[in-house]
């Protein structure tokens, strides 16, 4: 699946890729040509010079010296263009893969995508796509290396078939050494490094948030001890990787030197041609070593590809239920052992109960984002788990406990609610959510960049922005999880009054979870867990 996506995206970049390949081939040929002609010219000149002034004047130096300059320029421009076009092709191809991949994830069952915390899944996915980008950039190295090798072989053929055979054998052994051995040895270490890094990062983030406690109780030694094992693991795997990489590259150089010696020893047809063959062989081997980088990256790319494949091939979600009209006007029924609660459309329900009883889980199930709540919830007689996210999200708009803001501006967050939100709409809901004044005070107002997860706002402000977003969504029900947590009681009272007015005006129903009593009077009934 991910291979198909990449193929489709690369097809659209055919031209840039084509240009990059042509330039890579030209640069490689010019690189080999530069050294081969230089060697031939030098040796020829030395022989002619030794033969006397007449022979020297008869030596055609114009053509080779012009060729040398031309090769030098072609090699430079070719390399520059190759890098430019190969990067362009890769970047724009992956720019198409990202939304396509997002589309696949969005079309799958959310529970399957987020088996781990969503931030971790997202970070892994981001770095996997980046790894893929590197791999695509390197696609053009193979044609370049092949062209360099072919040019080298042609130059060697001029010095006889045996010297060409020596080059061929040398290049083949370089390839076998690199492709056959390196990825296998590296893979385990690369995985070790990635795992240690992931563990360290999450531990670091976790402990950094508790810095006050660490300072107060003097827990630094304990924290260092807890993290030490992963730090050692990280360093050991990095060292092993560097060792393997150096060995791989050093091995290639040794093989290249042996190859050049072989080419020189087996060359025939005179000193100038032998010199040309040896230098061409050296340049061809140099171009060939470019492939080692690809081999070194292979374990990381393979890992990334297999993880992306798992993500991209998740089965699609259940389709939409077609009774939306009826469901929008149907009552909601919550039931657990010995307790039942029916809310008519436009009604208001408080879900109560001590902390740790699974209120957040129940709301997630109601929304179709998960399915593990032990209670029964049905709408007009149909269990919500049968309806699925596709239908439920047209009935409910939810402000979750963690506020869930996207990285962007205030307006970006509000526009998530539905298509065609105007600025006037935004200000109206911000007023209702008691946040308009705060937003007006921001330097860029609605267009204020908030950072990841609304970092510029306080906890309570984040909650109210999330609430404002729900009010924009125009769904028959709003679902609020602790909307006033982190608010002072004066603001909470104002919010309760605004919210009651808004609910009356729009006839929207509400499902509320709140520990705080300030909002409890809004609800007409309570479902206790």
């Amino acid at each position, binding site marked *: 699946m991910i291979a198909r996506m990449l193929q489709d995206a690369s097809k659209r970049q055919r031209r840039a890729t084509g240009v990059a390949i042509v330039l890579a081939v030209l640069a490689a040929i010019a690189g080999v040509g530069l050294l081969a002609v230089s060697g031939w010219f030098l040796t020829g000149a030395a022989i002619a010079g030794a033969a006397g002034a007449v022979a020297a004047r008869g030596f055609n130096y114009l053509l080779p010296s012009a060729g040398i300059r031309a090769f*030098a320029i072609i090699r*430079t421009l070719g390399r520059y263009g190759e890098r430019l076009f190969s990067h362009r092709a890769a970047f724009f191809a992956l*720019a198409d893969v990202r939304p396509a991949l997002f589309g696949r994830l969005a079309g799958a069952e*959310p529970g399957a995508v987020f088996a781990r915390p969503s931030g971790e899944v997202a970070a892994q996915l981001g770095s996997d796509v980046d790894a893929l980008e590197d791999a695509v950039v390197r696609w053009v190295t193979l044609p370049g290396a092949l062209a360099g090798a072919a040019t080298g072989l042609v130059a060697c053929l001029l010095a006889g078939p045996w010297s060409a055979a020596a080059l061929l054998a040398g290049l083949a052994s370089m390839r076998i050494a690199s492709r056959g051995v390196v990825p296998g040895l590296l893979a385990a270490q690369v995985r070790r490094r990635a795992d240690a890094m992931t563990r360290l990062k999450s531990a670091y983030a976790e402990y950094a948030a508790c810095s006050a406690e660490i300072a107060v109780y003097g827990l630094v030694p304990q924290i260092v001890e807890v993290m030490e094992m992963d730090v050692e693991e990280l360093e050991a795997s990095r060292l092993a990787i560097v060792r393997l990489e150096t060995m791989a590259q050093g091995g290639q150089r040794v093989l290249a030197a042996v190859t050049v010696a072989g080419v020189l020893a087996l060359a025939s047809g005179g000193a100038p041609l032998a010199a040309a063959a040896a230098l061409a062989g050296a340049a061809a081997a140099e171009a060939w070593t470019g492939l080692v980088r690809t081999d070194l990256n292979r374990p990381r790319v393979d890992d990334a590809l297999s993880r992306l494949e798992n993500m991209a091939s998740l089965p699609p979600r259940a389709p939409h239920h077609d009774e939306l009209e009826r469901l929008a006007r149907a009552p909601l029924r919550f039931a657990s052992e010995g307790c039942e609660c029916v809310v008519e459309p436009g009604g208001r329900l408080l879900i109560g109960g001590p902390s740790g009883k699974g209120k957040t889980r129940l709301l997630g199930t109601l929304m179709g984002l998960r399915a593990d709540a032990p209670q029964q919830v049905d709408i007009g007689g149909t269990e919500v788990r049968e309806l699925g996210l596709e239908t439920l999200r047209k009935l409910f708009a939810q402000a979750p406990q963690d506020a869930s803001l996207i990285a962007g501006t205030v307006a970006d967050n509000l526009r998530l609610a539905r298509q065609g939100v105007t600025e006037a709409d935004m200000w109206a809901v911000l007023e209702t959510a008691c946040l308009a004044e705060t937003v007006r005070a921001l330097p860029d107002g609605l267009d204020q960049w908030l950072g990841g997860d609304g970092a510029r706002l306080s906890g309570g402000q984040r909650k109210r922005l999330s609430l404002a977003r729900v009010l924009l969504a125009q769904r028959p029900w709003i679902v609020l999880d602790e909307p006033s947590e982190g608010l002072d009681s004066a603001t909470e009272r104002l919010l309760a009054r605004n919210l009651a007015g808004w609910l009356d005006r729009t006839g929207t129903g509400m499902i509320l979870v709140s520990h705080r009593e300030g909002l409890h009077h809004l609800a007409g009934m309570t479902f206790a867990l």
Partner: protein
Amino acid sequence: MVVTLVPFGVGMAFAGLAGKAEAERQLEALSRLSGLFVDRVATLPIVLSFGAEDRVARQIGEAAREVASRTMQVLRMAFLSSAVLEFFAALSVALVAVYCGFSLLGLLPFPAPEDLTLGRAFFALALAPEFYLGMRRMAAAYHDKQQGEAAEASIAAALQQAEAHRAAEPVPAVACVSRLSVAGLEVTYADDNRIGPFSADWQGPGLHALTGLTGAGKSSLLHALIGMTPAMTGTVTLDGAAIAPASLAALAGWAGQRPLLLPGTLRENLLLGSPDGGVDLLPLLEACGLSSLIGERGFDLAIDPRGSGLSGGERRRIGLVRAIASGRPLLLLDEPTADLDSETARRVSDLIETVSRDRLVIAATHDAGLAGCAASVVVLS
């Protein structure tokens, strides 16, 4: 070869500076746009629940293309600088080859300073690319060096900040804090975002509440008391003597919004603040409604740092029990009753009130019940 070095240097400097300027110009936009994909995947549940995935996918595509074209602008300059290197490397090979060739032919238009043989000419040709190899390596390392320096500077700044708050002299351990006061305490965060000034006078033992609007700085004030804020002015006085706030850390027990959990058992985590052990935890756990957790899962329940399997309220109460069990004479509590249902919140308030009979307890809270038990309430605005 030496002659080519001068234009090489000029070309390098020019390309390097242009590349750096271009990279800096694009930095902010690039970092915002390139983080978009990861952010939207992380926030996928909320995107899905509003049915906004098609719009967001379009936005991701646009942002990714924008990133691609901006990155290309940066790379064009970066590649130019390496092309300059390449060009001079190639040119030097060409010049050396032509010079040596002409010298061997005896056709140089000027008297040659040396007499070349074929072997020496070859040697010169073979070494020509090496002449620039070091420069090319340096150019590659230059980028790493810049990154390294930026990282070093930010680490140094963080360390300096931490150093500035280190306790100058340890405060002698006291059994009881009878008076703690702050005057004109002002905290300055990044972007010149100021909080304060705060003034308060707390008598111990007793319970004192900090209330006020969201964002008024309750957490900041608590952090300032133990010197955990970036920059601050004002004075802190303990039992009549002015002290550096950081030295209060050794006297304080702390229960924050998200208590620390270390890998280990539940008992070890509860006793993190009391290294000597020997504290009877059961009455404390009983008093704040955690005894059922112990009853069901035991003191040896394995804890991981993310707190999997613990609710927000349970985690918060673990932090509270830890702070009380530490036996420190000063307790700083940040929203100790948040995330709790009203029955549990009442029990926790009772426990805090009991503890405050022989210690100085300062609690930031929105909970009117808890604030009602307090001997003094400081309202921050």
